[in-house]
């Protein structure tokens, strides 16, 4: 059984978290701390208890894991300084790293986030060289408020198309919905017409413009940070990733260790236990490989879809 300790840390002494102690950790591994970052406003237990189960599993494999609540989220009280979340969240992950260094001697860190937690992990990694690994579940590496409505709609359309042209094509329940009039015909017709139009009158392929996210990712990879992406499919966030990051994938792979896994028929919080189980396998495999390759971070990782 894992040893867990409720902790309070941070500059104001108000960040609440749970430390899961490494069990029989290899001496070299004990310097590597894993920090789990809030998934939106879901507290440090994680959606469907994902963070609790993952922390306990990793502790069995010799990892020290801290999961905590940002100010104003979960059990941590709000800050008094009115800092924007984009800034305070990064400061608080720094505080978590400082605390793990002081209390457990951790000098290098893997940050894991889900949904908006991935943005905090990404921002922190780009500013703090102590971060050597990122595990990004259902990752959106941009502030959603900065993404145009039109682009979001494109991603939604792509998700609906993918859902109807692959997964639901073989699902009797979806066909029943369609023939009994329970499906949203107007939306499906609009999206499918748009996709057909795209294939019939396909515009000349233009080279996609490299975004700030891709540039930062490349810089992190060159710095030796290993990155693991895991998405559920069909999800809008995955389609947005395909629109914005995937066109640059080969270039990113050439720069460092980066991997992508897509779990079919999963939602964005991985609510089915079989999907969470698969995530645990992927993360533990990745961490094992990561540990042995930590000093040679420029090696490109695997890429698969399942």
């Amino acid at each position, binding site marked *: 059984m894992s040893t867990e300790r409720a902790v309070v840390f941070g500059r104001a002494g108000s960040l609440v978290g749970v430390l899961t102690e490494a069990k029989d950790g290899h001496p070299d591994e004990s310097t590597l701390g894993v920090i789990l970052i809030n998934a939106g406003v879901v507290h440090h237990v994680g959606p469907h208890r994902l963070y609790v189960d993952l922390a306990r599993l990793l502790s069995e494999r010799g990892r020290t894991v801290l999961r905590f609540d940002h100010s104003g989220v979960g059990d941590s009280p709000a800050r008094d300084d009115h800092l924007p979340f984009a800034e305070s969240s990064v400061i608080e992950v720094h505080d978590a790293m400082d605390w793990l260094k002081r209390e457990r001697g951790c000098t290098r860190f893997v940050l894991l986030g889900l949904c908006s937690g991935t943005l905090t992990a990404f921002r922190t990694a780009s500013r703090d060289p102590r971060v050597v690994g990122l595990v990004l579940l259902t990752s959106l590496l941009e502030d959603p408020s900065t993404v145009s409505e039109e682009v979001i709609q494109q991603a939604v359309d792509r998700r609906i198309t993918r859902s109807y042209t692959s997964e639901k094509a073989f699902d009797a329940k979806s066909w029943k919905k369609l023939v009994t009039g329970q499906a949203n015909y107007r939306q499906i017709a609009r999206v499918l017409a748009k996709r057909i139009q795209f294939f019939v009158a396909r515009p000349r392929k233009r080279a996609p413009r490299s975004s700030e996210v891709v540039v930062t990712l490349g810089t992190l990879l060159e710095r030796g940070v290993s990155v693991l992406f895991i998405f559920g499919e069909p999800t809008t966030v995955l389609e947005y990733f395909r629109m914005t990051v995937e066109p640059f994938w080969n270039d990113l792979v050439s720069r460092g260790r980066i991997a992508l896994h897509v779990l079919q028929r999963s939602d964005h*919080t991985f609510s089915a236990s079989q999907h969470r189980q698969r995530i645990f396998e992927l993360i533990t495999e990745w961490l094992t490989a990561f540990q042995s390759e930590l000093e040679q971070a420029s090696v490109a990782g695997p890429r698969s879809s399942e």
Partner: protein
Amino acid sequence: MTSEITVEPFFFGPSEGRLYGCYERPKATTRTTGILLCNPMGPEYWSTHRGLRQLASRLAQKGFPVLRFDYLGTGDSSGDSRHAGFMQMARDLFVALSELERRSRYTSVAVVGQRLGGSLILSTDFSREPLAGMVVWDPVVRGAELVEDILARSRSNSVKSGSSVSTDVEYKGFSWTASFREELTYVDVSAPAEASASRMLFVETAHNEALGPLCESHRARGSRVEHFVSESPRADIDEVDRIAVPAKAIHRIVGWMEAELP
């Protein structure tokens, strides 16, 4: 906010089944009532956490020491869904009450229970330590109906499990074991044998026809009962991706406790 109260997270209870608690201690108070909050279960646990956390903070700001805790097999507490159950919730409730007493040295206690936590406090015998007040928030009145609901929703929503041997029913990330479901079929708080507390507040944020008669039953048994109906959003079992904070309900509960409890 942070200067008026102290937040103390900790583990407590027996070594074979540690429970996680979060105690909100007012820095200065003349109140003598400690308050225990009892969570819902399953997917509603995490979709209601934010609301209950805000309720705890608001009550602590009014001078009440408040303890929230996770039942065994849920949240941060030890174990997994195999350890969770209605009987276990009842055992954990008394462990948490003892812990609240140890920490706050209150002279009276009040309990708040939401959804299955509401059913729990309604079906618990508090006669050894009579309650100063009880807040019952959208309780599950008949457990059998919840079981039917879980079974129906899991059939229509869940991804088929690889292990067909398992009798667990998974819905929105929580496994309801066969023993838990069986325990729930015996839960029926619609006809109280005696008054649960001298002062009771029933909060209804999702329409429930059973609540009106339930309030009447408690009145008939001598409790002073208020039935508050609000349009606050309730984090529904189908909406776990949305975290709703039922502000009106929280406001009423805080106001009621401030007026009714020492």
